[in-house]
């Protein structure tokens, strides 16, 4: 039995942030019905700029929307609206990620939904909140990274460096899932519903809570090291280094101890602990030069024995060959209704030693209309 078996979620959201939240909930057992516009559907099916097309739609859509159903309905058509309302009446959760004001115009905002279904948990993601000068800006990942200071943390000192995946979308989705689940916990106790709101702005700031709290405390902007930077606020050796044959990560270790272990005499003079931070550029330069002289395996062998935190740097191809990856059983094959199969990752959460896998692939646009009408809507008419 999965935790959210018997829960029904009506999901109006598109792209990544909202749909990544409903994917988590689907994997926990909830029945997630995507409400999609007839003809086009979730814009992510086609317009998400990934160049990789699988079975006629973007790879990204298939990753985000497996284990869900699709109900094609025109929100502006009276008959379709009635069907949507019928679904909402039976739902535990309604969610969307339209810009502020859109759901109010469409008549499916929290106040309207609550009147029909008072115990509903209603979740929404906006870009920047529903007030303030940014509220109508596009809630797009790179723009959020740029506006929130995040681009000054990665890469070496110099210009801004974005994080190379849609990190803010992912975080906002995770935060929405948290808020929805917290309110479902309460609903399971006393039947109370709730409005849950998350903005990408709040999520981006929460992600940087350590760095922002530090900025408030000392008023100093993050300073990335000149080379081998992995964290603007940490001293040497924290970083990734090239070796004779590949790269390795080094997360800690007192500098003289590293000097002894690695046979690098130039490091022995940095005996003052504070120097690891204040002189990190010169220390990293010495380390970087020295580590080039041997292969990654040679260094790791020495350092791991001494309990120094370090690791090889792998790409996905290398990672997936490792026993440490295989033992996780992290991949699963899913199948679409037309027989098309693809491999993807599973939910990262294990409940009662059970991996939350599901073999259901992403839905074709509107492929569940008939079944949903038969199962959920017919007996509720009249």
């Amino acid at each position, binding site marked *: *039995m*999965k935790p959210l078996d018997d829960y029904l979620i009506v999901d109006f959201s598109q792209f990544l942030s909202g749909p990544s939240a409903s994917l988590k909930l689907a994997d926990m057992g909830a029945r997630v019905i995507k409400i999609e516009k007839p003809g086009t559907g979730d814009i992510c099916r086609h317009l998400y*700029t*990934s160049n*990789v097309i699988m079975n006629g739609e973007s790879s990204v859509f298939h*990753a985000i929307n497996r284990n869900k159903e699709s109900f094609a309905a025109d929100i502006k058509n009276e008959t379709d609206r009635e069907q949507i309302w019928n679904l909402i009446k039976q739902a535990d959760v309604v969610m969307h990620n339209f810009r502020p004001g859109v759901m109010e115009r469409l008549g499916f905002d929290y106040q309207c939904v609550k009147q029909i279904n008072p115990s509903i948990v209603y979740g929404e993601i906006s870009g920047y909140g529903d007030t*303030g000068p*940014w509220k109508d*800006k596009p809630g797009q990942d*790179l*723009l959020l990274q740029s*506006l929130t*200071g*995040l681009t000054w943390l*990665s890469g070496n000192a*110099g*210009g*801004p*460096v*974005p*994080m*190379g*995946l849609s*990190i803010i979308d*992912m975080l906002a989705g995770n*935060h929405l899932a948290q*808020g929805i689940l*917290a309110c479902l*916990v*309460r609903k399971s106790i006393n039947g109370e519903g*709730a*409005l*849950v*709101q998350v903005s990408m*702005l*709040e999520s981006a700031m*929460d*992600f940087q*809570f350590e760095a922002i*709290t530090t*900025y408030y*405390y000392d008023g100093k902007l993050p300073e990335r090291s000149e080379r081998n930077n992995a*964290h*603007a606020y940490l001293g040497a050796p924290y970083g*990734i280094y090239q070796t004779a044959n590949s790269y390795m*990560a080094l997360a800690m270790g007192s500098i003289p101890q590293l000097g002894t272990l690695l046979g690098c005499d130039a490091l022995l003079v940095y005996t003052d602990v504070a120097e690891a931070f204040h002189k990190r550029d010169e220390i990293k330069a010495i380390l970087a030069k020295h580590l080039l002289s041997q292969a990654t395996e040679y260094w790791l062998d020495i350092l*791991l024995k001494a309990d120094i935190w370090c*690791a*090889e*740097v792998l*790409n996905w191809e290398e990672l997936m060959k*490792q026993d*440490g990856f295989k*033992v996780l059983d*992290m991949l699963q094959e899913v199948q679409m209704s037309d027989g098309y199969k693809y491999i*993807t*990752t599973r939910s*990262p*959460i*294990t409940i009662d030693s059970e991996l939350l896998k599901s073999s259901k692939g992403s839905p074709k646009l509107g492929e569940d209309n008939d079944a949903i009408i038969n199962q959920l809507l017919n007996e509720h008419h009249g």
Partner: protein
Amino acid sequence: MKPLEGLLVLEFAQFMAAPTAGLRLADLGARVIKIERPVKGEAGRQIAIRNLFVNGDSLVFHTINRNKESYAADLKDAADLERVKKLIAQADVLTHNFRPGVMEKIGLDYESVKVINPRIIYGIVTGYGSKGPWALRPGQDLLIQSLSGLAYLSGSKDNGPVPFGLATADMICGAHFVQGILAALIKRAKTNKSVLVEVSLLESVLDMQFEVITTYLNDGGKLPQRSAIEGNGHPYLSAPYGIYETADSYLSLAMGDLQKIGEALICDLSAYPDKTSWFDKRDEIMLLLGAQIKSKTTNQWLAILEAEGIWCAEVLTYAEVLQHEGYLSQGITQEVILPDGNSLSTTRCPIRINGERLYSPVAAPRPGAQTEIINQQYHLI
């Protein structure tokens, strides 16, 4: 009323991933008690960034552990352990992030705790799961990033691996941990039985890459190709996606119709009429765009581009964003009051419930600060 009011969470966890989960549960209304060794407390109290300490604990510890209480107990002392077991009997959730075997040795592993409290939600965070050759390796953020392929997504092709410059694995794993614990509480409401929840940093960072890993797995095993141009924003996205230098600072451009963007920027991109070229020739295109964008200031470009509905933004530092009305209007900053009367500014919970922002002025506790009151309230002595 906050949604998790009435729930009691015992946090045996240290450092970052699991304690950030405890913080979220606390902000959502749960009572979160850290179980810490006497005097020294959890090891995270001494882990500092930029060598900053406040009232004896690192500033990072304060950031992660506000809105919690602390109960001091030496788990190797029989009397202390007995009291902790009495507290566990009354708790809803227990979390820890010890390496495999540690809680078994103390006698607080899941099987033992289930006997003490048959309704407990027992949550474990590991680095790499509980079995396999990596199970005993240190579960540290940069190492997990490095092993997971994440370091090949940011920066440009010639940079070598570029890690995310924040404890991203910890943060995302903590976020998943919260979801697992809450789902378990929902399950318990149906079964009235204990639930075991497990997450690992590695699984969480792989999940964070689910879009791009799925693309990789179904793209003939072609690894991500970062653009060679500095500022590019995503290995799988076409031009113009990235950050460009302007006459006075920087400008980010997200996805959009390249021809329309070219026209707005007065940059001739007629050589790239079809969408596949926007990806295949993105380095060339980004160089052309970069040369043109350098000719005006960020504000000049924003005025032109925003009028056309093109997705763009300025690139702000903390000094700029934290004073911007777009940020200030969201009430994200909050003050916590330290025991010495000083206050610390930090951020609040990113989730709003029923239109309310969730604030709490409670600072991180000193080790054992609430031991006596907890002894009384839960009748532990």
